[in-house]
């Protein structure tokens, strides 16, 4: 499942090595607009609607944070 998240991230930023970072926004791998593009992709792929109040940097800091967010929406990972 983590591979699916990485795949979605790399569709947005193909040049970034997401496996090597623990802080996607701090390391410049994602910006705030990428975060929104990622939410749209996660919503579509996992058939959820991530709430606006959850679209904050700490929920997209790294793969673990994104996985935890999806679990909150009962996505089986």
């Amino acid at each position, binding site marked *: 499942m983590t591979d699916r998240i990485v795949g979605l991230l790399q569709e947005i930023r193909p040049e970034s090595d997401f496996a090597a970072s623990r802080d996607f926004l701090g390391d410049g791998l994602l910006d*705030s607009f*990428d975060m*929104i593009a990622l939410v*749209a992709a996660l919503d579509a792929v996992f058939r959820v*609607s991530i*709430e*606006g*109040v959850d*679209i904050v940097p700490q929920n997209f800091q790294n793969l673990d944070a994104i996985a935890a967010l999806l679990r909150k929406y009962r996505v089986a990972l």
Partner: protein
Amino acid sequence: MKFLFRDKRISGLLAVVPANEASFLDEMRNFDFPAHRSLKLKEVMGYDKHRLVQGETCVSDLAVFGLQHLIDRRLLDRDDIDALILVTQSPDHLMPPTSSIIQGRLNLKQDMFCLDINQGCAGFVVGLIEAFLLLEQESIRKVVLINADVLSRRTSPKDRNSFPLIGDAASITVVERDAGGAVIHANLKMDGTRNEALMIPAGGMRMPSTADTAVLEDVGDNNLRAKDHLRMDGSAVFNFVQVEVPPMIDALLAAAGATGDAVDWFLFHQPNRFMLQKLADKMHVPHAKMPSNVVEKFGNSSGVTIPMAVALNLGQRLIAERFRVCFAGFGVGLTWGSMLLSLGAMSFCELIDYPNSSGLQTGG
């Protein structure tokens, strides 16, 4: 803060947009940004077309053009206008008030009240509240509320965070008494501690415009912007809207003793499609009842997006039909407000173009 108004109605609405249209696909080259990421933004945010004034077209030009259109067609009698409220963040000058300029250019009567309000995306709700309050006076029977902005003139074309969504426009809303009309509920909140989330830093007394404030600076993410330009903390604004707006609508509906199902249209300010869809999902409102087509077709014109949504989505239907509508605006200040009212039996409701390169319109 709650408001309740009786015996008032919106009797006509006209939106005015510059005929000059720009396309995000054409403007992508202005941004130092990979094309595939720009296209992804287009898809998610709804960036497509936006309308921009040309040359030195000002707020008063759009407003006078629209008012003259109504006067010429006998949809509005200039002598009936007892108050003129202009809500704008892009006045013609620091002084005099642009509402006075409009009054003068149209030779409106002296026995009237002109008022400028410096508000933005919540400005339609703020302006309606002010109009309804004025109508409590015996001497004021008809108020013309103008929402207008030409913020493209103060937005960096090389700022991907702001420029693609900015649109210029004006709206003219006629508000008058309506004996026996349905009760109108509204609420409004403001938080000045977050005033820097949306601002144009230079151009006022705190930081006068100089050659230095006009210099483009790298503000990150390959965006270039000057201190003379609009600055928007997109993440802070997004979070503000998602946190504050749903409970505001809940409180409005509770005050009116209504449910969301009883509302025909949620006509909200339109910053971008993504933000609106997230709001709709949170409020369990079908996307079709909360349109985002204004920002996609015309751009985000601050306080004008709500009246434009009325004209674009309901238009002529409002002459013969009636709908229960919820307005919500949120933005600069920070300010957020909403209103629940019945719309219908209007004399006019349309959207017109302000011609290209028409120069100053000299009404009156």
